[in-house]
């Protein structure tokens, strides 16, 4: 051993120093963040030798994920704030009827007074009877920007009530997010796109929060969804949503209306003569020209081109002529019904406060023109770090959130409304992966907002499993959440989409059983404290 003395001495010196340094972190609270272990955590080394515990999900023979331990899946809420959230008691017959989709936790809609979904359920009942279209529009962030959850809900409802088409499609998109999986949207030419998130565009971002300036001779073509037999869905209704105005000034993204200006009558744009003159637009369905005209105008405003084509078409396109660029918002493609349309209006990075970027009357007119039967708001995932959420019960966040709901509902006050919480998100900031701390508060605030606004509420966070869910979902094979702990994988999105569709259908069954269709329509909520919407300009009909 003597020959090894220098080596052992060095060994003891190194690890003794390291041990001393680590021990120092326990001597003063200011050093607590440097501690490698806290009392109460698993005991290092020895805990490795004990059997592992925790919820497990296993893959069944049919490929479905099932609970290895159903008792754990039915475990109660993890925190006091979580306990304050209404997710539907297990004894609730609606919850009991929901399908088990592990690792998700069956979660019903919370609809105080059973009226929050009334308008939409009425249209669903009509669609089921072969009459009309039930239109839902869902606003959100990256959670739905890739149409993951919304595509599942759309598919489920269209399978039961009928496929009324893909609905509203933004003309341009963030190319990193394939906004819709079911339709092929192909831009031709170098589109200049502004969005609610990136700014620019004078506050005019269209129905989907995205506005694109199509260059001269550029265009966008859309091919409709494929059906089970491989053929394309035949659509009979087309709309082009576009902007008119004075010449486009460089850097303003193709629009010039300032916050608070009326949609049809604002006379802004002074000095615009130095910009690029707006050009002529054109539209085709099924290869046939269905209209065209100038997008030049003295003032900035919005226009729509509506086409009803009894022959039907499977593709459509719209673009700018040689005379100059045209700013376009999107297209609507529908079959004419009966059935369901579920618009996915996700913009990466947005939160409830982002909607203040919209020219308020512009947004109101856009929503008014689309006139959805159901406004779905799924926001907040990008606002979990807001200081207002970190204070107390997070109640200071409520006005921000309600303001966004007001802005979205102002154009369709008679519509139903559904508020969905953000999904669970995690962080690895200086420690093991865990859920972000403010999710329970955000969910509680949003539930309160739903109650105040007469909206239905669905707690997607609880449906995932609440605190720690995203960590569990990301560690599954195949992974149900990306390892960034922010986004769900396709498989995870599908589970959430299925659970949301379960909740909507269960709510519809309950509404039907209660004789909802025989009840008078609920009174629209009191007008939002916002400027009265300017009258929408007349739609251009062929």
């Amino acid at each position: 051993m003597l020959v090894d003395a220098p080596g052992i001495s060095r060994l003891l010196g190194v690890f003794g120093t390291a041990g001393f340094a680590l021990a120092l972190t326990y001597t003063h609270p200011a050093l607590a963040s440097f501690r490698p272990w806290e009392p109460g955590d698993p005991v290092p080394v020895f805990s490795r030798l004990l059997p592992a515990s925790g919820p497990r999900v296993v893959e069944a023979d049919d490929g479905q994920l099932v609970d290895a331990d159903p008792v754990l899946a039915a475990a109660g809420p993890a925190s006091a704030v979580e306990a304050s959230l209404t997710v539907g008691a297990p004894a609730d017959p609606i919850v009991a009827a929901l399908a088990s989709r592990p690792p998700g936790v069956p979660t019903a809609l919370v609809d105080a007074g059973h009226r929050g979904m009334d308008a939409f359920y009425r249209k669903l009942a009509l669609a089921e009877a072969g009459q009309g279209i039930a239109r839902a529009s869902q606003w959100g962030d990256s959670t739905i920007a890739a149409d993951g959850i919304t595509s599942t809900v759309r598919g489920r409802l269209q399978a039961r009530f009928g496929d009324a088409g893909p609905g509203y499609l933004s003309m341009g998109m963030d190319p990193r997010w394939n906004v819709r999986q079911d339709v092929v949207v192909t831009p031709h030419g170098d589109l200049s796109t502004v969005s609610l998130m990136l700014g620019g565009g004078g506050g005019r971002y269209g129905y989907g929060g995205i506005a694109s300036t199509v260059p001269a001779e550029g265009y966008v073509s859309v091919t409709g969804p494929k059906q089970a037999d491989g053929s394309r869905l035949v659509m009979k209704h087309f709309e082009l949503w576009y902007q008119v105005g004075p010449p486009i000034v460089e850097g303003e993204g193709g629009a010039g209306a300032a916050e608070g200006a009326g949609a049809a009558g604002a006379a802004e744009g002074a000095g615009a003569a130095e910009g690029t003159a707006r050009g002529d637009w054109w539209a085709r369905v099924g290869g046939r020209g269905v209209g065209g005209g100038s997008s030049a105008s003295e003032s900035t405003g919005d226009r729509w081109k509506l086409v009803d084509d009894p022959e039907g078409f499977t593709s459509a396109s719209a673009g700018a002529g040689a005379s100059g660029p045209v700013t376009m918002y999107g297209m609507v493609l529908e079959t004419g019904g009966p059935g369901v349309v579920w618009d996915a209006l996700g913009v990466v990075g947005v939160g409830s406060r982002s909607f203040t970027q919209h020219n308020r009357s512009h947004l109101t007119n856009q929503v008014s023109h689309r006139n959805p039967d159901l406004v779905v708001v799924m926001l907040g995932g990008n606002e979990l770090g807001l200081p207002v959420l970190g204070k107390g019960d997070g109640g200071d966040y409520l006005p921000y959130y309600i303001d966004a709901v007001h802005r979205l509902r102002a154009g369709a006050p008679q519509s139903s409304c559904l508020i969905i919480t953000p999904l669970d998100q995690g962080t690895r900031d200086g420690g093991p992966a865990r859920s972000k701390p403010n999710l329970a508060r955000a969910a509680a605030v949003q539930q309160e907002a739903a109650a105040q606004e007469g909206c239905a509420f669905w707690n997607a966070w609880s449906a995932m499993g609440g605190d720690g869910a995203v960590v569990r979902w990301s560690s599954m094979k195949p992974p149900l959440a990306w390892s960034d702990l922010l986004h769900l994988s396709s498989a995870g999105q599908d589970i959430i989409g299925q659970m949301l569709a379960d909740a909507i259908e269960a709510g519809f069954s309950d509404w039907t059983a209660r004789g909802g269709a025989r009840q008078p329509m609920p009174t629209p909520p009191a007008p939002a404290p916002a400027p009265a919407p300017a009258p929408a300009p007349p739609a251009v009909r062929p």
Partner: protein
Amino acid sequence: MLFATFDYFLFLPVVAVVHWLIGSPFGRTSWLFLVSLVFYAAWDPGDTVALLAIVGISYIFGLVQRRAPESARGLLLAAAAVCLLGPMVYFKYTRWVMDTLSVFVDVTVPERHHLPIGISFYSFQALAYVIDVRRTLGARSRGEVPKHPLEVESNPIRFATFLLFFPHLVAGPILRAGTLLTQLRLPRRLDPEDVSYALTRLATGLVKKLLIADVLRVGVVDSMFADPVRFGAFETLVALYAYSLQIYCDFSGYTDFAIGSARLFGFRIPENFDRPYRALSVAEYWRRWHITLSDWVRDYVYYPLGGSREGRLGPIQPYLNTYITLVILAVWHGANWTFVLYGLLHGTAVSINRYVKRAGWSVEAPSFVQASWRWALTFHFVVLARILFRSPDLDVAGSVVEQLVHGNWAWPRYSLHAWVVLALGYALHASPPDWATRARAAFGRLPAPVQGALLVVAGWLCVQYGPGDSLAFIYHDF
């Protein structure tokens, strides 16, 4: 127990200090045997059954061969191969084979088996021991001098420690029996230089694993392979570059831990990597990547097949041997058709390298321009072939290729942190090798308390800028 954890940094120094405080060499070996068992059982105590079975079988076959006549040794070797590789084949390949067969005939596909961790590594090492004993005894019986002489180990504890030694037990390096058994038989000592060297390797492993591999895995790679259709062409390409760096830093980081840990007990175990992404040909890549596995398949598969000699099939024979060797090497990683294709792809590339060299088209001392394009071609071949290596199935691999070809070229969504790590990682890979040597030398000159403090700082940096969790090493799955 994962290397890059607080648990391991408590476990290792205690085990090392106790080891050196034990006076007798055999006592030290017994201690290593005991703690290695504990280390392995920390994953799953049930897995020790398979491990001890492999230890017992190879030990017995070693003894039996020594006493058996030469004529029976070939049969014994075949029996040993079946017994030693049987559990690995059963756990790893049964479901895949039956699943493939079920396409053609009506067979029941069994449930997916739990794969004992490290079984691919220790099974190969155990078989190598039996083969080397057989070759040594065979050469001596013919009156020849064995190329890699190996004496049969009769001490069961020493033999078990050779296979179980915890630094290399779970993911290699795959040692030739002579490398470690010889050192176990000799007295060992610990110099201060050994401690300094070990610390630099441990710190290097920590940084490679937590600050590079895991950051890229969490921030770039896993998301893309979980959902390739949601990523554009540029994002996919960057994710593939990131994956190549991730798997290198993950596995070579593991090797750094293994070499550093072993050095604290006075053992020298071989390197497993030699900056593989600097290779100018795919054949050279395999001489720089997972060197001990490449050597294993060369010695125990490629050479027995005939190596580069022309056999019954004439000039085609070496190419066939290359294909067989590389497919076996690839399928060793997992039971999946993606690995078969991966092996075939690399077999084709190595065969092209060989053909070009044999035809005299290859330049021995390439100019900078020639070297550059050869490097670029080799590097991108390796990066793109990893689509098959990483994808869980051919559908996902197809989706990744589809996105590469048809996806958009918008700027990737990866964080600045991930970009910085990606750039720094490749920059370090490209740095002159003597930088690391000089850094180690400089570290070795520091007083022990300063070394200890630097180790704590390295650990703290990894906690602050790593992903927070200690994620499993990729090669633990193999």
